[in-house]
């Protein structure tokens, strides 16, 4: 099945289009339909894992079609070790979100589900796109549904928060568009083809002059830093989280913020290796400031949701630090931490939403001792919290440990400071638990809160399962990302004499006998160990495409 990625990508949007034609006043079937579509998408994405070959660092399951041939813009999608788990995270969180909002969204349920599904497609598209312009299109497409989710279904200050979110993000991403165009045309001068190329595999390993790298580095890094968000640019995040509905917060924290860190890994490091290495201390410094600052601000928050929001700033600081420490362990930890953060923060937002649903307040002061009235809920919350703290045996520990261990090798000073962040996280989260769940019940309303409901349990259980799985057996996940990370590091360090197994090859493999031969050659090369091979292959459009075979390292 060659169209697997396309199916996963467009299934939610197709579902959303079908939902448009349903009448407005039947919330049950609408939500059910949305759930069904998102579950189907999840199943389809499991098939991606099934078809994913562990040992390959390059892109797999690549599909390529011409989209705007005049500009060399193609619809090219592919998955590799770094994006695989993020796609899975997206497809997992969407049904969770729809389940979690089953009873909490009363206003315009149809539009809500449609926004969520469009959002899912856009996010998957951004993870899968192998063409820069295609990536940009999905990157922007994410904004509108999120804007509506915050703006329509949000709290009191929702319009301010929605506009702030939108403007921050678009300001960064438009500059990135300029960078993308510039990058595409750099290639024109180099190849003298006349048509720019935005295919990322062809742009990897493009050794640009340092000053150009610096400019482009900042154009891209700004967009992603806003999205992460990195320390001075984070101000939109607490507003957006506080105002967004529970589902919106889960998606925002769980997946959207990962666009930033993912963007660093996928574009910034391999495109501008020299600039990345040169400015890595700056970004690490900012992320460490973010870690400490986020943790300290989280500590003093009276509002549970804001607390979790600031903890996101802190946790994502770890991810960025891991990325810019630029070594195998830290980057793997960083990718894993992206997934972890999606799971644990998603679960926390979801659970905060559960009590908010019942009491319509998120203030810590309004709770206390609810462990007695909501025992099941408390168990889930404590697991999610411990995962966020980084308790050994749960997922957070693996990610943070890898990041810190990796960073110690390159930036011991920063890593030490960042480690304080872990301790602070334990302090503010345990303080949250203490204030909300234990101690005497001070408010009478808290004596009769109903415990967590079936749909909420159904939503949170998959997250808890994943939290435990990653914590106990992280190798399931690390194994698949390892080759891609190695390859990324090779690109950054400029070690690769041959280019990576490219999209064109895989795309051509289905129709061109030459490419099929190449594929078999590749497996031969794999057996013999390190070996590079470069052969001309007839590309999809008849153009002679330089295709090289991946250097296999083990």
């Amino acid at each position, binding site marked *: 099945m060659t169209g697997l990625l396309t199916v996963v990508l467009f299934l939610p949007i197709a579902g959303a289009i079908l939902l448009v034609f349903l009448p407005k006043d039947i919330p049950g079937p609408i939500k059910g339909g949305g759930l069904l579509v998102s579950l189907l998408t999840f199943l389809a994405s499991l098939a991606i894992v099934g078809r994913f070959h562990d040992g390959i660092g390059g892109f797999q399951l690549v599909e390529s079609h*011409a*989209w*705007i*041939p*005049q*500009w060399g813009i193609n619809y090219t999608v592919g998955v590799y070790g770094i994006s695989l788990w993020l796609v899975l995270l997206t497809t997992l969180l969407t049904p969770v979100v729809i389940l979690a909002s089953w009873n909490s969204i009363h206003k315009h349920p149809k539009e809500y589900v449609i926004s969520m599904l469009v959002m899912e497609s856009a996010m998957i598209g951004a993870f899968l796109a192998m063409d820069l*312009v295609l990536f*940009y*299109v999905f990157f*922007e*497409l994410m*904004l*509108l549904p999120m*804007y*509506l989710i915050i*703006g*329509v279904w949000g709290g009191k200050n*929702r*319009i301010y928060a*929605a*506009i702030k979110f*939108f*403007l921050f993000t*678009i*300001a960064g991403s*438009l*500059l990135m*568009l*300029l960078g993308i*165009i*510039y990058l*595409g*045309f750099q290639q024109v001068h180099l190849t003298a083809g006349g048509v720019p190329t935005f295919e990322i595999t062809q742009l990897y390993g493009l050794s640009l002059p340092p000053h150009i790298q610096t400019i482009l580095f900042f154009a891209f890094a700004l967009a992603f830093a806003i999205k992460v968000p990195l320390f001075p640019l984070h101000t939109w995040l607490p507003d957006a989280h506080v105002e967004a509905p529970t589902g919106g917060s889960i998606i925002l924290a769980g997946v959207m913020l990962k666009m930033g860190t993912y963007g660093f890994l996928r574009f910034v490091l391999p495109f501008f290796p020299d600039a990345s290495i040169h400015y890595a201390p700056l970004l690490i410094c900012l992320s460490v400031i973010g870690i400490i600052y986020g943790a300290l601000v989280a500590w003093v928050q009276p509002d549970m949701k804001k607390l979790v929001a600031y903890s996101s700033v802190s946790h994502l600081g770890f991810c960025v630090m891991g990325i810019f420490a630029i070594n195998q362990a830290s980057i793997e930890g960083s990718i894993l931490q992206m997934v972890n953060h999606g799971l644990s923060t998603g679960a926390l937002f979801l659970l905060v939403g559960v009590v908010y649903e019942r009491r319509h307040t998120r203030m810590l002061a309004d709770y206390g001792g609810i462990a007695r009235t909501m025992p099941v809920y408390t168990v889930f919350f404590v697991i999610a919290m411990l995962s966020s703290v980084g308790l050994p045996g749960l997922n957070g520990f693996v990610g943070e440990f890898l990041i810190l261990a990796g960073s110690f090798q390159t930036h011991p000073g920063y890593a030490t400071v960042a480690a304080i962040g872990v301790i602070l996280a334990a302090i503010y989260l345990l303080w949250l638990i203490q204030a909300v769940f234990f101690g005497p019940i001070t408010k009478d309303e808290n004596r009769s809160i109903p415990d967590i409901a079936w749909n909420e349990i159904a939503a949170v259980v998959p997250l808890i399962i994943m939290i435990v799985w990653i914590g106990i057996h992280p190798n399931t996940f690390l194994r698949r990302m390892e080759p891609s990370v190695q390859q990324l590091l090779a690109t950054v360090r400029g070690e690769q004499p041959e280019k990576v197994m490219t999209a064109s090859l895989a795309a051509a493999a289905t129709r061109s006998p030459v490419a099929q031969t190449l594929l078999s050659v590749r497996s031969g090369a794999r057996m013999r160990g390190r070996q590079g091979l470069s052969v001309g292959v007839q590309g999809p459009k008849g153009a002679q495409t330089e295709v090289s075979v991946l250097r296999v390292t083990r």
Partner: protein
Amino acid sequence: MTWADTLLLLPELIAATGASILLIVPVLGGRARGHMAKWAMLALMAVTALAVIGSTYAVAGVQQTPTFRAMFAVDAFSVFFKLLFVVVIALVTLLSEDFLSEERYSTWEYYSLLAFALCGMMFMASGVSLITIYIGLELLALSSYILAGYYKNHEESTEAAMKYFILGTVSSAILLYGISLIYGVCGSMRLSTIAAALSTMLSNDALMFGIMLLAAGLCFKIAAVPFHVWTPDVYVGAPTPISAFLSTGSKAAAFAVFARVFYVAFPAFHLDWSNVLAAIAALSMIVGNLAAITQTNVKRMLAYSSISHAGYSLLGIIAMNEMGLRGILIYTMVYVFANLGIWATILMLRRHAYAGESVEDFRGLHKRAPFAAFSMVVFLLSLGGIPPTAGFIGKYFLFAAAVQAGFGWLAIVAVVMSAVSMFYYLRLVVAMYLEEGSGAETIYSPSLRFVTALSLTVTLVVGFIPELPIRQVIESSSHLVGRVVQR
């Protein structure tokens, strides 16, 4: 000059004849049948469109064929713009229906003037001599002045027409002075002859001054800063369909002229004038967008937004490369359709009240008119340049052209200002979707619905499958670009 030449002039002849016939009809007793005027006008537009398409077959391969002593040319570039103009005028006709039936103004004369304006625009698109371009522009301008003052009984409309007239005349005089200086230096008003004369010149201050005056005159027509002051008042005061026309058709024609004159005649002096135009473009983008943020009247906001869009489009002229010219063509098209769609929505809202165009009127629109609200969002996103709408394709071209031509700083200004522009476009989205409220009464007539649907289709189709329109644009602009490359 032969009869075949006259055949090439057929679209203009048809438009002019049709306009005259529309003028005569009421005298022949058609005054009572005002509702017929719309259909007569649409039929005229259809015939004109056919003639435009037909004229392309008269020219082999649609290469440039100057006729009438190189005063007039039918080429792919002019055909592209002429078809765009015909569509714009037809849509404006549809937009005008309600306004005319409500206000009981003389219908036939109104459409006749629109047809004359179309005629002027077609001469602008086809003119390969400064004098033809100038006279076509004047024909368009004069029709626009009258149409802007068509609300004779409204003080604002009269004031708008007066302002537009006086400032327009001054700008015409400036333009004419520029032309006379250029003529003096080059000894010809034919664009190709000017280009040939310029290619042997090193530098000439009088010529530069002439080019600057010419650019100033054209900048007035496209409403670029600092020649923009008339725009907000005129857009607010003029009858709404005419505002729609001024912000789309009239501007598109001015851009056709801008592009042809600068790409054909002045490439040799690109280094000299590009920086001045770059300053104008940057100012337009900054002033237009910043001023638009503070507006509460939607028409005024659109006026300032159209000023900023003039700035974006100028990037294509400043860049002076293949990408830039294509960018102007496609951006003009994209902008025209997005804007017409927005004006259709405003017209829907503003019935029965003259001044009710505030942002508040849009509150909760998605409940009362879901289709209109959705289309409006698409149009606004298109103006903001957000994918996957057509606006992204247009902006992509223009930004890429600027980057390619080494005007990176200008592209950065454009990008930052695009982000700023989202701020006020979003205000409308917020009002429509996020705010509750009864807002203004809406009556969505079939004509308005048709205009919205057509604009929406174009905006989305160009956004999603841009291959075909881009190919068309490349064909339409290739012969002008060829000249630049030869340079």
